[in-house]
């Protein structure tokens, strides 16, 4: 049964693979610069690599917003996001899996009475806007640089064509890696606290964690989406939304990939912090919206010839509609699962990161997130309110200090959930 619940994540992964490949290889495949088979193989491989080895950063941010701690709840959250994406796509409205999953998590928070970390929420929403602005800026800069370079290079169009193909494949691979790293949190992030997979130690050299196995499953689902359905999407939107020359597509995909990478790289975050610079939040952002930012960037350099203001308006509309839709579906879906199928859709949890007046704050979010990345979120966040059959004495090194007896008394007086 526990594995059955993962189906919604697989469905969302398939949907992401089917829809988002066009953002990376759309122009390249639609213009036949790169064969679909080549694009699909590269995209699948690098999406999986990105998901498995770079997906933890954005997942942690989602957890800070709301740690879905029951399998059935995680199932409903992901299913609601997938259904919202599907519905919005049917209505031909711009949609983002990132925005859908955020809305779904907020719906779960509302249903379970869990506190929402508004700091995280603000950071996430601001990041969506920042992602578009950053992609537009990168795109404009790379475009100007490339244009100046081409003016001086006297390169033959046939040779340029060959280099462009190589470039499209390389930025496509980078884009796929960044997409996997940034968006796997949308697909499998909510299952992290309840992952059924155990860590596997490979000959004492490498530990394949339960979370990585979960992300591998999500990555494979995305790859299946790429192979089975993305070609149709590419043929439909590859020449519609992105009426770009292959060289402009190279610029836009490079800018998009950079932004996705920046918003998902823990190494970059660590480097920035080590040099005393402000860290960029690791947030799942929308590749579809980032790519529109990239097109706008080129449009600005070319004096606004390619800016489609209606598309920008549609994005703003999508920001409102998608999370609300996903939140509503989650809320009512959880209600049905709980009351009709008698499934446990959440477990009572102490609201995280809420400072008690006159007392110590709750365990810091960052420490909780690190724990979540190791696949033991449910045990550690439940410190002081153990699950049935689970001891509350897990005192590993990265576990936050246990609350004092006074705090425990305060916690007991709180009503954990309005729908119990």
């Amino acid at each position, binding site marked *: 049964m526990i594995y059955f619940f993962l189906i919604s994540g697989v469905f969302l992964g398939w949907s992401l693979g089917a829809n988002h490949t066009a953002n990376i290889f759309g122009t390249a495949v639609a*213009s*036949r*610069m790169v064969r679909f088979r*080549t694009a699909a193989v590269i995209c699948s491989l690098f999406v999986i690599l990105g998901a498995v080895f770079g997906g933890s950063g954005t997942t942690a941010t989602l957890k800070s917003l709301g740690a879905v701690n029951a399998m059935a709840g995680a199932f409903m959250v992901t299913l609601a996001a997938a259904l919202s994406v599907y519905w919005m796509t049917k209505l031909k409205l711009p949609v983002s899996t990132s925005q859908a999953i955020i809305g779904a998590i907020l719906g779960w928070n509302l249903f379970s009475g869990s506190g929402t970390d508004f700091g995280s929420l603000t950071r996430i929403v601001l990041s969506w806007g920042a992602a578009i602005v950053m992609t537009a800026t990168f795109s404009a800069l790379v475009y100007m640089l*490339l*244009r100046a370079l*081409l*003016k001086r290079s*006297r390169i*033959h*169009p*046939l*040779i340029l*064509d*060959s280099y462009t*193909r*190589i470039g499209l*494949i390389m930025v496509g691979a980078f884009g796929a890696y960044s997409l996997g790293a940034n968006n796997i949190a949308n697909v499998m992030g909510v299952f992290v606290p309840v992952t059924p997979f155990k860590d596997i130690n490979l000959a004492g050299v490498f530990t394949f964690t339960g979370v990585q196995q979960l992300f591998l499953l999500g990555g494979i689902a995305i790859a299946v989406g790429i192979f089975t359905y993305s070609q149709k999407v590419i043929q439909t939107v590859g020449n519609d939304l992105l009426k770009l*020359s*292959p*060289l*402009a597509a190279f610029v836009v995909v490079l800018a998009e990939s950079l932004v996705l990478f920046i918003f998902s790289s823990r190494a970059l975050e660590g480097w920035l912090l080590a040099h005393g610079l402000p860290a960029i939040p690791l947030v799942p952002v929308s590749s579809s919206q980032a790519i529109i930012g990239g097109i706008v960037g080129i449009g600005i350099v070319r004096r606004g010839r390619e800016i489609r203001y209606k598309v920008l308006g549609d994005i703003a509309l999508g920001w409102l509609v998608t999370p609300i839709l996903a939140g509503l579906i989650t809320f009512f879906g959880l209600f049905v699962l709980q009351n009709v199928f008698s499934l446990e859709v959440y477990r009572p949890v102490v609201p995280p990161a809420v400072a008690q007046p006159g007392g110590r704050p709750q365990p810091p979010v960052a420490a909780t997130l690190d724990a979540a990345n190791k696949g033991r979120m449910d045990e550690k966040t439940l410190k002081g309110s153990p699950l049935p059959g689970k001891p509350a004495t897990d005192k590993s090194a990265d576990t936050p200090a246990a609350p004092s007896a006074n705090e425990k008394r305060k916690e007991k007086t709180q009503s954990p959930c309005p729908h119990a």
Partner: protein
Amino acid sequence: MSIFHLKRSKILQGQIDEFLNIVSRGSLVFRNGMREYLDGEIGSFEGTIAEISRLENQADELRRSIENQLYVHSLIPEIRGDVLGLLENMDVVINAEKKTLTQFSVEMPAVPSEYGKDYLALADACVNSAEAIVTAVRAFFHDFNMVKNYLHKVYFFEKEADKISDRLKRRIFASDLDLSRKIHLRYFALHIETISDHAEDVADRLGISTIKRSF
């Protein structure tokens, strides 16, 4: 895959250069042919016709091969149509040169000596416009920013050809020749003039393609 692609592109680049060389050589051969005919060197003239026919065949074969490869391997998708249009119109220029010499060979018009200089000047202006368009098309592939510098030469020589042709026709029709001879001589002036008109057509296309190619 991409390394093979690069090799293929380099071979194709060589073929396009070769095609342009042939068109350029065709113009020089055409000029020689005109001079030979007007000087009465009919033996050499027939040899020149054979040479321009061979060049025209080579140009046709190369053009077909280039077109075929551009489509089969989906090369330069965003400017493929423009490149094919340019090559086809360049082929029309060498075809016109061959056709004009062949008409001279078939009809053997008797050109009075006082008009010989004008016919040669007309042929020179047409050849100059054809040469300029070959250079402009070459620049389109190798030195994109120089295209405009050559295009204005095409237009200049085309205008020159028009002026010479107009003057020649007026002189012919103002003469005491039979009307049938006048019409016959005018017909050949028109034939030669067509070459610069075709060069101008290519220049017009090239101007648009240059704007489209600007990144």
